[in-house]
């Protein structure tokens, strides 16, 4: 099932976040993660696809068929809510069977499908339990089974992992992705967690203030973020960004000078922390706070009045002492340029020619992958 959202606009006025002129296409069997800060309109978009939210304008198409005017119960969608919304007065079995009862499937067949779905998400031994006897992770699985049992046209997942404990979140997200791949079900997964988005998506749609500000594969999104917002939002620790004019001017010129000699006002220079080369280079930096993040250290550096975040392997971080000096540099291939006013990515070649990148970068441009 191919899912298309065309020209969706939802107004303030209602109690939901606004969406402005959103277009999104999800290919058959594809998993698109819609990621963005709270209030960016991502849940509103799901509400529109499921039929709960009436839009000012816009259409939803399932396999080219306009379903905009169909009520939710006639769209055949599977939906996992953030708080699961399991029926508290029914057993797990009754919960999972409910969509089949609603479809008037004969009891025998329904029971068989329930068993299958329960097996798929590994809750078969919980079928007789009531929701209040389940853990958060188990409820989540039941909600997933209920969404999958009717073999939905599309699967919508609204922050399905956000109510789970951190240590099981990574496991469950892998299970969901594996299940989605096995069932080849067209899926939209909404989250505010950029790491989650990168981990499981075929395509990531980054949303900000009701608009999609980047739509591409996780690899491209990380390696060549198509917009300033996406560059800031994706990646932890956050990307370093310096305006070519202003207090960071000296540093921006020193780092990007060779490739963008005419670096002028209105341009932002960005470098991911892991691409700051520490220990050798043309620039002298003062070492500040060091935070151990596990395998690596996040080292806070300053050059003049500008600050730099650098991700440094533990072995290389060991000799760095607070307030000491260290040489740093950045390989020009790791530089990102953005227009400050539009937030669009700029490609600047060695000759200084500039080109504005489209927000929807082709997934095949670079498969460099994150954290190279």
């Amino acid at each position: 099932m191919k899912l298309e959202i065309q020209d969706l606009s939802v107004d303030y006025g209602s109690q939901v976040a606004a969406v402005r002129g959103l277009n999104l296409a999800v290919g058959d069997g594809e998993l698109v993660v819609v990621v963005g800060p709270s209030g960016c309109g991502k849940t509103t978009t799901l509400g529109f696809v499921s039929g709960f939210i009436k839009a000012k304008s816009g259409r939803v198409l399932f396999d080219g068929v306009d379903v905009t005017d169909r009520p939710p119960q006639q769209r055949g969608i599977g939906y996992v809510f953030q708080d699961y919304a399991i029926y508290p007065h029914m057993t797990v079995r009754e919960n999972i069977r409910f969509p089949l009862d609603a479809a008037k499937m004969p009891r025998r067949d329904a029971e068989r499908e329930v068993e299958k779905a329960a097996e798929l998400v590994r809750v078969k031994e919980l079928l007789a339990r009531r929701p209040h006897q389940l853990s958060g992770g188990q409820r989540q699985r039941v909600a997933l089974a209920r969404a999958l049992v009717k073999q939905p046209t599309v699967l919508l997942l609204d922050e399905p992992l956000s109510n789970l404990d951190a240590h099981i979140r990574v496991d469950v997200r892998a299970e969901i992705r594996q299940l989605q791949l096995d069932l080849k079900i067209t899926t939209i997964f909404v989250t505010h967690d950029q790491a989650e988005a990168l981990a499981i998506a075929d395509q990531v749609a980054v949303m900000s203030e009701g608009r999609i500000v980047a739509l591409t594969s996780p690899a491209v999104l990380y390696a060549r973020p198509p917009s300033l917002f996406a560059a800031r939002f994706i990646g932890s620790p956050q990307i370093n960004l310096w305006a070519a004019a202003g207090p960071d001017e000296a540093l921006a010129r020193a780092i990007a000078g060779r490739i963008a000699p005419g670096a002028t006002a209105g341009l932002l220079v960005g470098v991911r922390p892991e691409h700051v080369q520490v220990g050798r280079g043309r620039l002298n930096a003062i070492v500040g706070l060091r935070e151990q993040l596990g395998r690596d250290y996040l080292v806070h550096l300053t050059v003049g009045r500008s600050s730099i975040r650098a991700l440094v392997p533990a072995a290389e971080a060991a000799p760095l002492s607070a307030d000491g000096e260290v040489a740093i540099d950045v390989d020009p291939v790791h530089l990102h340029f953005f227009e400050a006013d539009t937030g669009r990515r700029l490609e600047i070649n060695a000759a200084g020619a500039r080109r504005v990148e489209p927000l929807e970068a082709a997934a095949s441009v670079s498969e460099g992958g994150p954290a190279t």
Partner: protein
Amino acid sequence: MDLVRFTRWQRVARAVFIVAALIFTLLPLSWLISIAIRPSGTAVFPITLLPSTVTLDNLREVLVGSNRLGFTPFVNAALYGTSSAVITMIASILGGYALARYNLRAGESMLTVILALSFLPAVSRIVPIFILFSYSGLYGTQLGVILAYAAGATPLGIWLMAGAFRQIPIRLEQAARIDGAGVVLTTRRIILPLAIPGILVVTTLAFIDGWNAFSLPLILLPNQNVQPYTVALQKYVGDIGFGINWPLLAAGSLLGLIPVLTLFALLQRRLVRVGGLGGAIKG
């Protein structure tokens, strides 16, 4: 463990207060029972809590004796109570749901007005209802009193049901829609089962209201055959003469109390829980 720790004196004060409250509520009831089971015509003053002779003759006399009140007034009261409870329940579910879920323009102020209406005493409605019924031909009819009772109980019912429905997460209704259920199935399988505690409270209160009603049927039902026990009892005690026969009056009142007490005993736990409906729909 208690949330609050009391000092010894606070605990003593609490115990005294509870005992006083119990005496205040239970003493009249005990005295009523005590009077009802002493022989007819026995003096009731000076007050003695324990009668010298115990007999069930009064109860028998009221129901089947030669000077009987009979079963009819009780059956009438039950009929009016039950019918008005059913009407109130349906009206309250519909009205309460609309106020809880639809974004009505004056929803909140409507709820306030409805709550205020439910505080109006029955007597205040008698005159307008009397006039209305005289013109519409409902005066003296059983349907008339049933409607009058239901009209009295519905405001509080709607208010309570609106609260009960608001406790049900709207997410569950959305989930049901997603699962392919239309309005009817969502209502039957999701909303109503979760609203049962509230529905029980509203229906019980409406029944008790109807069962105990006195002033409305006194005015609206001149025909003895259709009067409920409350009205009939008053006339009965006057009719059998000798001043007021207290033991017989007490026996009749006691018979009227039994269904109410039984209902409360059966539903006690659920009724208390509605105060914090959250426990009923955990999850």
